[in-house]
């Protein structure tokens, strides 16, 4: 996989919301001749992801396909398609991801338990997301694992997280539509670990604990653990805290 690589700015159009289902046909006929073609991600409603493909591939969470139109081949990728090293790393870190590669001509629709889907555009930067919140990525994006430290532990989903890197689009799921917050040097951001979904860009994160003797006495502020993001990038937060439906997400 992954020989051909993506257009950054010269792409025909960005994967914005578009009504035209047959766009891929146009692309296949015209643009693809001289522009390098990339799978087109777009949202159909807020809970279904439609991907227009012209012979290229996307990686998606296993079993997340709900419908397709055209010719598609689905191939389970052991270890997320990261090779033997990636497979071993994922097994060791517990940050497991069952991924399939979808390749073909046509439109393929993906959804995951009616969760809200958010599109992320990557232009060479890195997206950090929990493997269970990652729905689909352009096949040309590299995925890997990274250590999160105390943040991961406070969210209750392990010490490791998934990274997505390269040029292209990815789709992440959240419980309720995610709010995208910009972090810049003059505006650092503090996030509740339960509402954190993903972040991208050049961010430093630090773990803040407000545990005092009051917390132990049951009179805490209820927001004892927080993650502070500093630097330059985007943070995705969901309007829900991971303990209800998202408890296992």
């Amino acid at each position: 996989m992954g020989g051909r690589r993506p257009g950054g700015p010269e792409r025909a159009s960005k994967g914005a919301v578009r009504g035209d289902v047959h766009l891929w046909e146009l692309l296949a006929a015209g643009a693809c001749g001289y522009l390098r073609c990339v799978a087109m991600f777009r949202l159909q409603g807020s809970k279904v992801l439609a991907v227009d493909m012209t012979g290229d591939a996307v990686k998606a969470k296993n079993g997340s396909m709900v419908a397709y139109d055209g010719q598609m081949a689905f191939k389970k990728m052991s270890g997320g398609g990261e090779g033997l090293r990636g497979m071993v790393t994922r097994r060791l870190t517990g940050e497991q991801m069952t991924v399939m590669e979808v390749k073909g001509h046509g439109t393929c629709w993906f959804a995951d338990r009616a969760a809200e889907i958010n599109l992320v555009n990557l232009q060479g930067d890195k997206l950090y997301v929990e493997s269970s919140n990652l729905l689909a990525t352009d096949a040309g994006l590299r995925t890997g694992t990274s250590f999160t430290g105390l943040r991961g532990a406070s969210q209750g989903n392990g010490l490791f997280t998934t990274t997505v890197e390269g040029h292209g689009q990815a789709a992440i799921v959240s419980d309720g539509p995610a709010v995208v917050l910009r972090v810049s040097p003059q505006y650092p951001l503090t996030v509740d670990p339960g509402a954190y979904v993903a972040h991208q860009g050049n961010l430093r994160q630090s773990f803040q604990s407000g545990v005092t003797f009051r917390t132990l006495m049951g009179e805490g502020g209820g927001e004892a653990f927080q993650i502070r993001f500093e630097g330059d990038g985007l943070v995705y937060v969901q309007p829900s805290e991971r303990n209800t439906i998202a408890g296992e997400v």
Partner: protein
Amino acid sequence: MSTPYGTPGPGYGTPGGPAVFDPTTLPADDNVTPYTFCVELKGSQWFLQKGKMIAYYGSMEFNGIGHGRLDRLVRTSFHSPLHASDWVVAEGSGKMLLADRAFDVNSYDLEDGNLTIRSGNLLAFQPSLALKQSIVPGFLTLIGTGKFVAASNGPVVFMEPPIRVDPQALAGWADCPSPCHHYDHGYMTGVMGGLRALTGLGGASGEEHQFEFVGAGTVLLQSTETLMAEQATGAVPPDAGVPGSGAAHTGPSQVAGGQRLPGQLGDLQRRFGL
């Protein structure tokens, strides 16, 4: 179609992508999305239910209400001491996002008024409002002038009394219309009614019991009949004549005899001497 709220700014994020917010583009005391509310603090204070803050810019402090420094504030605007541990006071300056389990959130302005709301629905309020336990078990009353934020399962609909509403759809009421129970006696009485009640045959439509509101005011309904998890409002003093003080605290949909199974219309034996 997802609606973009606010305008995307420059830098990260691409045009056509999701709206990206920073402290200058976040609204002040308004909804960011139907599920997320932004509160602006300028050295002011807000009462919040624990764990409903999802993110903030600026510097803020969250203190449990038992905090000594906040005693005066609690005395003036918080009158249900027994569930104080579920609430925190946020103070500082910056912008803070509130959300509750991806339910719809909305803010309401009270001007020298009063509003009674189901305890599980209230998220946050300004200290210029006083929060009190309602006489109706499971409900809280806000009195005064100020803004509060409440969650609902589906958008909220405002209705004028006189109206009868489904108990599960009731979110609250403002300006004191009189709430009472209403039973569809035509359906429940008579030979057929008795048979239905005793045998469960013929079934119940599930709409034999409603809440009736009469008088001036507004009734707030949520657009589903799925209740939001109830928040404890604290016990009431065990005095005679205080509703909810005798038995264990029961839900808001309480009729004499407590919770009932579907198909069972009421204590008909007792009520009609059957």
